[in-house]
């Protein structure tokens, strides 16, 4: 029993790390621009497919480096062409725009790469089980958790140590003031969006190694990511990270006891958190979007 619980808890942690990675990107975008990016899952899928195309040429490690960057570049373009029209308008419009964009992404990936699941090669040595005594664990799973940790630490370093990051954080608090102080808000929003999409692309490459590739790969992750943001509290990236890991572990543990409720449990959790703390675990008081 202990083994099963531990295994599922760890599995939940991996899934939670994905939720967190995706939710952090979403959260970055929401915090600065009030845009809920429904197409985030589509970007994730795109990152995975780009990696799939690159692997035969530059290998898994090369793809892991390059694919998220290419996805982010696409994100920069999409922001410039489409998303920017929604700034300052009712959030409804950005919701619908990215909703339409999600449809376009999903159908396009299906059209280009087919609806069926494609095999996604990760290095063999990563797939050999590390331990079968205590519980079954492949190197890939461990590696994913570590990489997510590195990415998250990197993100927090960027936000806290670099000029761009500090501007993003300041813009989250008061974009108008940042603009008055002479920061080019146009570019700031653009780069912020790209940074968010980079995280989506990275999550995509990692997820493909675990789940295989199909056009709907981002779909099952987008709703839990929203839940992670709500539970953690809008406006707090640490909260988002916490929320993502938390729902991952809880849903992993639920798999042990009530398998059929493993998906719904996170929404129940969200309801409970909202009942006790309407602003989320680490959300600031009075943060309204």
């Amino acid at each position: 029993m202990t083994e099963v619980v531990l295994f599922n808890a760890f599995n939940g942690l991996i899934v939670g790390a994905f939720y967190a990675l995706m939710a952090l990107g979403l959260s970055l975008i929401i915090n600065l621009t009030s845009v809920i990016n429904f197409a985030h899952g589509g970007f994730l899928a795109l990152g995975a497919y780009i990696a799939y195309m690159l692997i035969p040429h530059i290998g898994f490690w090369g793809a892991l480096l390059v694919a998220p960057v290419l996805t982010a570049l696409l994100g920069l373009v999409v922001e410039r062409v489409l998303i920017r029209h929604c700034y300052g308008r009712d959030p409804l419009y950005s919701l619908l725009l990215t909703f339409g964009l999600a449809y376009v992404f999903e159908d396009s990936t299906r059209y280009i790469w087919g609806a069926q699941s494609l095999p996604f090669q990760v290095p063999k040595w990563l797939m050999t089980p590390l331990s079968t005594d205590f519980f079954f664990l492949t190197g890939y799973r461990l590696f994913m958790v570590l990489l997510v940790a590195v990415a998250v630490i990197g993100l927090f370093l960027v936000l806290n140590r670099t000029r761009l990051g500090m501007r993003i954080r300041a813009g989250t608090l008061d974009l108008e003031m940042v603009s008055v102080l002479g920061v080019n808000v146009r570019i700031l929003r653009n780069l912020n969006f790209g940074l968010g999409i980079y995280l989506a692309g990275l999550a995509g490459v990692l997820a493909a190694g675990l789940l295989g590739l199909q056009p709907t790969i981002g779909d099952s992750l987008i709703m839990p990511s929203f839940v992670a943001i709500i539970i953690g509290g809008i406006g707090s990236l640490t909260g988002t990270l916490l929320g993502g890991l938390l729902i991952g572990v809880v849903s992993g543990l639920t798999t042990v006891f009530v398998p059929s409720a493993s998906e719904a449990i996170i929404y129940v959790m969200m309801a409970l958190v909202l009942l006790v703390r309407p602003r989320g675990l680490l959300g600031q008081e009075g943060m309204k979007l």
Partner: protein
Amino acid sequence: MNRVGKGLTLAVLWLLLLTMPYWMAAVGGYTELATRVLVLGLAAMSLNFLLGFTGVLSFGHAAYFGLGAYGAGLTLKYLAPSTPLAILVGVAVGTLAAMVIGALIVKLRGIYFAMVTIAFGQVFYFIAFRWSSVTGGDDGLTGWHRLPLNIGFTQIDILGHDKAYYYLVLLIFAVATGVMALLLRSPFGRTLLAIRENERRARFLGIPIERHIWIAFVVSCFFASLAGTLYALLSNFTDPRALHWTLSGNFVIMAVLGGMRSFWGPLVGAAIFVVLQDYVSSQTQNWMFFIGVFFMLVVLFFPRGVLGLIRGKRA
């Protein structure tokens, strides 16, 4: 618009609706498609009660639509062979859920509200999806159908005659929209407009904002679940997609497309959406792509909707 013009527009609208099964074929449609326009139009109008007139965006209305659909389907399958009872149960289930969830989320606003409504919708989606022994899971709820209406002295065969079912739906639609219009004209409806225009000022006037938004949410979900029951009875089938958030998104786009500040706008939006989707999906497998592009074009170029555009030109 003056009174006469308004009356004339309404007369034309109802004339079009009354004769829809007869001219639908001429424009490449069929009676079932006409019924679908009405049903989804009602759903979009119910959403707009909240979005357009209260200023609150729910992105999870499919949940109540789907609860209505499942409520009706499960009643006919397991409980009793009665169409009116199926409708009643479906509406009751959807409304009850809305009362509970509404109370939980009424303090939230804007994006937060939208996100939470989607997330709650997912709970019902997964229940329908996972509880396959009762709901049929992903394959949907089958093995039942709507039954002829017994009205004392005679029977109306709404099962065999799809035109008869259309007129039943039209009757319910007329009553529902009538009630909605009355509510919006009442002091309660005016208060909702006040909240939409300036929540802070309304609060200073002593209006209990949370209670009003809660009631508006419940009323809106009441009509959404009514539409859901009619939708399930239309196709004698329902599946988890009736609960999925993508359908909620479709409702929102219908409302925005038609014009969310106008009463009839969402019906116009639903008509355009339903006919377009029917046409595109018969032409190409990649209908999602075109619907998606269509969404983006609406947002970028017709943010005030079709009716908003017409009005804007007149003004």
